[in-house]
């Protein structure tokens, strides 16, 4: 009897488990269906475009379709001496065909990104070589443009053979392969990007350090003062936090303008003899960035400090700790997760600042995002815009990942 009952119970339990599993499965399906619309939206309209753009940073498909024979003939070229007659002949054929088809400009502008002047070389040679000529192709090509007598002209063609390339990534680090394929530093006067990277990281680090120093006492004040005072101070943090970035940048432009509030006040106080140029320099950029990013430092610090029981400090002082050492040994260590979260958020956002340096900075204060915009918009050099984006995104994700590994994202809740 007992045996049968046990079997019955076992059956019932199995059926129940099956039903529960089915219900759980059904729930998973409906959960997935609910997530799907946004997931597809982000994948199709956001992730795919970002991926496609970044791909342009390692892709090179503009020259090979226009000059297929030349690129093919160059495949075994060593890069140490001018190529042989067949390559020159291939070039003549390619140029004639591309000129007739009107496909030359895209290849010309890609080669011009490699070496200024190659656009003229390519288009001019195509024009001069259009008419039939006698004798070897080599002589005719060199007559059409002496630039074809230089190794690096052919090096540029070989570098652009595609379909994949490290040309743009190397260029973003001020490096370049020579005709033989060895990576070398570019000439001093062309090396701009290392300076830009250094400047970007330096400004971001400086802004992060200043916001930390300014935010810490304010956050502590909010965490430790009476509710009425705390909410007034919190309001002072939240109002700029919610105000448009452009409004805050505009406010700084007005404050620091030659005819602006700061200059007028400083002249009236007799500190300046005449209005000074306070805008379009590093100072203006850093001050405005600190102002814009301060709430991102104050809020996580405050969130952590609020959790520290005030009794800890009292206990420390009743045990005879000097206020400074009580702060250093009891309070400060408990705020470290907030410091980490705040610094991460400020630093990452600072790396990506575009509008504020564009409006408040001078030419020497423009950060990496400016150059991404410049190459995408002004010179339409997508490869360069994409490779710089790739490096900026890699730096951002690396810092986020490193933070996740070292501190963990659960350590602090900012809302």
């Amino acid at each position, binding site marked *: 009897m007992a045996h049968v009952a046990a079997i019955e119970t076992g059956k019932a339990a199995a059926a129940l488990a099956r039903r529960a599993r089915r219900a759980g499965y059904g729930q998973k399906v409906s959960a997935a269906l609910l997530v799907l619309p946004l997931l597809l939206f*982000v994948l199709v309209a956001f992730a795919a*475009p970002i991926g496609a*753009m970044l791909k342009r940073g390692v892709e090179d498909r503009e020259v090979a379709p226009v000059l297929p024979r030349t690129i093919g003939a160059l495949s075994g070229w060593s890069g140490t001496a001018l190529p042989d007659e067949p390559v020159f002949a291939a070039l003549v054929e390619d140029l004639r065909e591309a000129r007739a088809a009107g496909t030359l400009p895209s290849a010309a502008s890609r080669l011009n990104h490699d070496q200024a002047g190659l656009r003229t070389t390519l288009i001019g040679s195509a024009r001069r070589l259009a008419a039939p000529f006698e004798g070897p192709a080599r002589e005719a090509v060199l007559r059409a443009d002496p630039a074809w007598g230089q190794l690096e002209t052919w090096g540029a063609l070989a570098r652009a053979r595609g379909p994949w390339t490290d040309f743009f990534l190397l260029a973003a680090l001020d490096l370049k392969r020579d005709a033989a394929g060895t990576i070398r530093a570019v000439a001093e006067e062309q090396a701009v990007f290392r300076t830009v990277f250094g400047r970007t990281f330096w400004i971001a680090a400086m802004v992060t350090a200043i916001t930390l120093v300014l935010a810490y006492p304010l956050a502590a004040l909010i965490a430790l003062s009476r509710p009425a005072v705390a909410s007034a*101070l919190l309001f002072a943090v939240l109002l700029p936090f919610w105000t448009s970035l452009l409004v805050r940048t505009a406010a700084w432009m007005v404050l620091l303008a030659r005819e602006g509030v700061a200059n007028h006040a400083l002249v009236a106080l007799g500190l300046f003899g005449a209005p000074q140029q306070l805008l379009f320099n590093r100072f203006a950029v850093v001050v405005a960035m600190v102002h814009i990013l301060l709430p991102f430092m104050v809020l996580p610090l405050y969130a952590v400090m609020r959790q520290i029981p005030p009794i800890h400090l009292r206990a420390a002082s009743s045990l005879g700790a000097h206020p400074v050492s009580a702060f250093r040994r009891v309070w400060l260590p408990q705020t470290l997760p907030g410091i980490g979260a705040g610094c991460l958020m400020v630093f990452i956002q600072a790396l990506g600042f575009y509008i504020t340096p564009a409006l408040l900075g001078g030419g020497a204060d423009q950060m990496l995002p400016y150059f991404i915009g410049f190459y995408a918009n002004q010179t339409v050099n997508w490869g360069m815009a994409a490779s710089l984006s790739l490096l900026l995104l890699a730096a951002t994700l690396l810092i986020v990942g490193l933070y996740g590994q070292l501190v963990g994202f659960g350590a602090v809740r900012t809302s």
Partner: protein
Amino acid sequence: MSAIRLAWWVVGLAVAVFLVAPLLVIVPLSFSDGSFLHFPLPGIGMRWYRAFFSSDFWLTALWNSLTIGIASTIVATALGTLAAIGLWLAVIPGASAIMAVLLLPLVVPAIITAVALTFAYAPVGLASTHGGLIIAHALLASPFVVVTVGATLSQFDRTLLRAASSCGAGPVTAFRRVMLPVILPGVVAGAVFAFATSLDESVVVLFLAGPSQRTLPRQMFAGLKDTIELTILAAATMLVVLSLVLMLLVRFLSARGEARRP
């Protein structure tokens, strides 16, 4: 002790003043009768507000900001709320990877988003259109909705849904009559975040928008590159007031959500 305390208070208050002072300076300047950028004001009047409301450029920008903001808020709130409910309902395989993808628009620097979307949307005819800008802003705003609604849902009692279904309610009815009323403050707060995101957005609009999608930030950017007119400050003041309203709305909603909790 008291010297340290005093120094601490002075520094803390100075930082608080530093945070609000720039905003407090532009408000009175926008009511100036003259066109100077400094105090004292020659007179007080609504001159620059009249200029704002009689300029086709600024009115179009205001209209674009509002319509693009509202449309992208609707898209982001609808999709974001559904996704947050899905992520809360059950543990789907790869949930953390999905969450990472959904939060991507928050992590990618704005300039990369701007250039990439312009590059991708142009061939399909979405560059320089309202539609393209609405899609872009909805993408940038959706993470805020997912996070805000998700936080509200973490407080939601699952047994309520089971109770609804045992009383014969279908999933849609259960959502509409049981879940939505409870999580509504979170959904509205997410929508407010989304709207504020669109209203604030200034980099993507610079690249993706054409002349007929000029929004307030874009119009301000153009004005700031030129000689600064006080009309910009009138616009800025109105934006500050709008931000204030949105901020108070979110605080009110979160206080209400707080009060509902047992």
